[in-house]
């Protein structure tokens, strides 16, 4: 088990936290919390065997959040002195003073047990920052060189983002947590041109809550096999026929379906959205609170959980940014909406949920931002004795098999969506008969999930995800994972994107 980075524990966060919380309490706040974070980030980009971008960032800062006179106040700073910590606390209280004049509904937060000085570290083997840039760049150079051996490949890129996030939290109730997590986000893509088109083909890996071992251990991802087949897959795609628009049965691989889950279930079941707190920006939700327990979200084979505890999940952590111990729970059970994602303010608004507690979904992407209700790892469960991907394909007479994500878009209530993919294979009479191109699927969320006839077994389940989920004002990004099995959907609309463009 890795330990908390000693260069982090050498920083004076406990003194700053005590000074800030003490000053906030002197000013009479009803709640105060203090967050100190260090986020190390490195991004490398190699294009055609040349290192194009090598960027290191190391951001340290702290934030004070208060509830005062029934209003939130938040302030952040970067000068690591106790005087500055006290000044930032005073700024947070001053913001609350301004806000209190315009706050009609006093802010309150759901209760949570106190955790006295607990530590949590994510599961990884190799700290990516312990590997030299030269070694990492050499690996990416090798990957692009391998791709460029393919006759159809004109250019190839390989990139990897790496994050080491360490944070300390303390609040006026007495909870103190120190946590660390690591994630890596590799991406490898080949580009080529055909007679009348150009296109690309990307590997099907995901960003993960693992260390550098994810890029070097074939048991975690079979990089050799993918790098070998990508040029051929790209060549086939460039010559593939354009899809005939219409209605198809779809077998969707986890490498594509994770993103549909993210957009149409993950965001739709955030309670702050359902209650209007994101209405000006990311939007609200069709899954309104009055439909809890009755909304037929999808077919009876649909079971979805929220989980901030799954090993290697991007949203996995021990305690959230409001000092809540993380949990897992049901969101959709046998096709019916049964749960939401909550932070402490949302938990207070709906005390009948989760026993009156938050389920641990507060997160801020940096010390410069206020924690908001954020997505857990939201995952579709497999059928315990469910079919393989090949069995699902065999059930389709006229359909498509979709792998890999590409373009995505959904409306502000999470009804209408449109997605493309890396590869669309035509299925005819239960067999794959080659790729088609220019395809996108378009549906309404409940229609789509209602059309899910079968989910695959555990052997088809993979944990996908994204590093860059956006939400809130000021805008924040968050990493989140979504697991799912290969799944079968009947009678879904397929567009031809070339025809959509009017060509």
């Amino acid at each position, binding site marked *: 088990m890795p330990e908390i980075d000693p260069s982090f524990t050498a920083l004076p966060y406990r003194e700053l936290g005590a000074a800030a919380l003490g000053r906030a309490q002197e000013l009479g706040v009803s709640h105060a919390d203090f967050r100190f974070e260090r986020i190390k980030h490195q991004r490398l980009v190699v294009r055609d065997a040349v290192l194009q*971008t*090598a960027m290191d960032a190391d951001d340290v800062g702290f934030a004070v959040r208060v509830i005062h006179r029934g209003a939130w106040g938040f302030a952040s700073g970067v*000068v690591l002195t106790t005087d500055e910590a006290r000044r930032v606390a005073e700024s947070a209280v001053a913001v609350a003073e301004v806000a209190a*004049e315009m706050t009609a509904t006093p802010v309150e937060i759901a209760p949570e047990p106190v955790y006295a000085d607990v530590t949590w570290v994510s599961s990884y083997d190799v700290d990516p920052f312990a590997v030299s*840039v030269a070694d990492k760049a050499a690996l990416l150079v090798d990957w692009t060189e391998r791709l460029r051996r393919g006759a159809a490949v004109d*250019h190839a890129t390989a990139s990897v983002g790496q994050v080491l996030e360490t944070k300390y939290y303390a609040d006026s109730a007495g909870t103190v947590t120190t946590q660390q997590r690591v994630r890596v986000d590799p991406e490898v893509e080949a580009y080529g041109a055909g007679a009348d088109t150009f296109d690309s083909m990307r590997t099907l890996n995901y960003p993960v809550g693992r260390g550098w071992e994810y890029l070097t251990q074939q048991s975690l991802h079979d990089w050799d096999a993918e790098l070998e087949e990508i040029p051929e897959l790209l060549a086939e795609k460039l010559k593939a026929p354009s899809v005939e628009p219409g209605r198809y049965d779809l077998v969707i691989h986890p490498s594509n379906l994770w993103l549909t889950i993210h957009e149409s279930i993950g965001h739709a079941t955030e309670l702050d959205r359902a209650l*209007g707190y994101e209405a*000006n920006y990311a939007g609200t939700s069709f899954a309104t609170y009055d439909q809890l327990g009755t909304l037929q979200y999808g077919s009876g084979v649909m079971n979805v959980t929220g989980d901030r505890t799954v090993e290697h999940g991007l949203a996995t952590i021990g305690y959230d940014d409001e000092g809540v111990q993380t949990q897992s729970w049901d969101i959709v059970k046998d096709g019916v909406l049964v749960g939401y994602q909550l932070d402490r303010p949302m938990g207070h608004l709906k005390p009948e949920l989760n026993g009156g507690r938050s389920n641990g979904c507060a997160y801020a992407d940096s010390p410069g931002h206020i924690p908001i209700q954020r997505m857990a790892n939201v995952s579709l469960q497999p059928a315990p004795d469910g079919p393989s991907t090949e069995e699902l394909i065999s059930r389709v007479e006229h359909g498509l098999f979709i792998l890999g994500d590409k373009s995505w878009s959904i409306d*502000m209530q999470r009804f209408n969506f449109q997605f493309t993919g890396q590869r669309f294979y035509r299925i005819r009479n239960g067999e794959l008969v080659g790729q088609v191109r220019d395809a996108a699927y378009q549906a309404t969320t409940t229609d789509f999930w209602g059309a899910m006839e079968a989910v695959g077994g555990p052997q088809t389940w993979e944990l996908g995800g994204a590093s860059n989920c956006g939400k809130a004002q000021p805008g924040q990004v968050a990493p989140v994972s979504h697991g799912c099995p290969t799944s079968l959907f009947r009678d879904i609309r397929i567009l031809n994107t070339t025809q959509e463009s*009017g060509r």
Partner: protein
Amino acid sequence: MSASTGHGVDPQSLVEHALAASMGDDCVVVVRDSTSANLRWANNTLTTNGVMHGVHVSVVSYVEQAGGVCTGSVSGSATTQADVDALVRAADAAARAASPADDANPLVRDRTSPDWSDAPAETGIGVYDRVAPALGEAFGRAGDGGRVLYGFVDHRVTTTYLGSTTGLRLRHVQPTGHFACTGKTADLRTSAWVGTATRDFSDVDPLAFEAELAQRLAWGQRRVDLDAGRYDTILPPTAVADLAIYAYWEAGARDAWDGQSVYSRRPTGTRIGESIARPEVTLRSDPAYPGLECAPFEVVAASSQDSSVFDNGLELGPVEWIRGGELAALRQSRHTAALTGQPVTPSVDNLVLEVDGGAGSVEDLVAGTERGLLLTCLWYIRTVDPQTLLLTGLTRDGVYLVEGGEITGAVNNFRWNESPVDLLRRFSHASATVPSFSREWGDDYFSRTATPALRVPDFNMSSVSPAN
């Protein structure tokens, strides 16, 4: 000199210390001192609010080795000389470990801003001294009128200091702000939005915006359901800004040269010189454009596909990206300019779309439309096909039916599939260019735009969205 860093070390000293500490052959240091203040509201009450202060330092080290110049780029929060020392050491080490950069060029030399020695400019919660009470009054008016308000105001001031071992001492103050508010009827079935960019909030009147939202919600009292299809559609300046920004972001010279964008000429080269829009169209940027002023010099923390650390400090001036309907320039560094044989035209942080002969306002376009749609704004815009720059997205917060030159009701929302490059060829009417605010990108990424409203005779509404 005052020190926004809060403890006696001013940004200029951080720059000088870093330059002196670097063991590289050359070094560029960028210090960004940024303060911000925001208010957010929902359900006619304030929700999360905050003030932030950050000092961010980027160090680029340049080391000459066999085969060329190697670079290392390291950034981080830094407020002390010790913090800066750590960044410099890391950048120097990264440069020594790197292979020669293929974008190497001579560094820019010897220029000093007249205000170099000035302290960072700041903002704070006080910027809302006039706006906040008016907002509170707007909440009351909305509540009394059966309306619900959701919105956000943000103001940021970033002071950038760029210094180099080659004699650059450049400073720029960038204020950035916006007001955006969504209004809904009490039953939440009808929605409207207003938004504007601002530099200092002196020109923002929340009560006027509340009144405009009330008028737009009133337009929705008559509901009309329409099917998907191609419609004569008026895109207001905010929606045109959404699309123009995407066309600009995709205008990287390297991607075009490599055959990977709508601006590529296949099998090789770019479409510079080719007619891609109606001849009346000009798309341009200008750091000195009144009201949209932005940094007049290049700042690059790490090289990428479209920018080069060797270009730090390069003067930025007016650029016409589309001139007389022809593609005239693409975003490029000195490195990509050498590849493409075109002038050096790095990105500029503002964008202006103008149409010769464009006149009047959105209301004038409405008055001239027999039957069509008026949009409010666009949302969740993503690339579907880069070779045509086919985008998809949704309409949001108000689609209105125009009949006989008047707005006669509100229509359901749509998913659309369109290319902004194609729209610049197909539009039939344009208004005058005015300051605009992109709904999707203005908040976080790109707020300095001026665009006209455009009327497009056959805008592709691909399917109906039941969202409201």
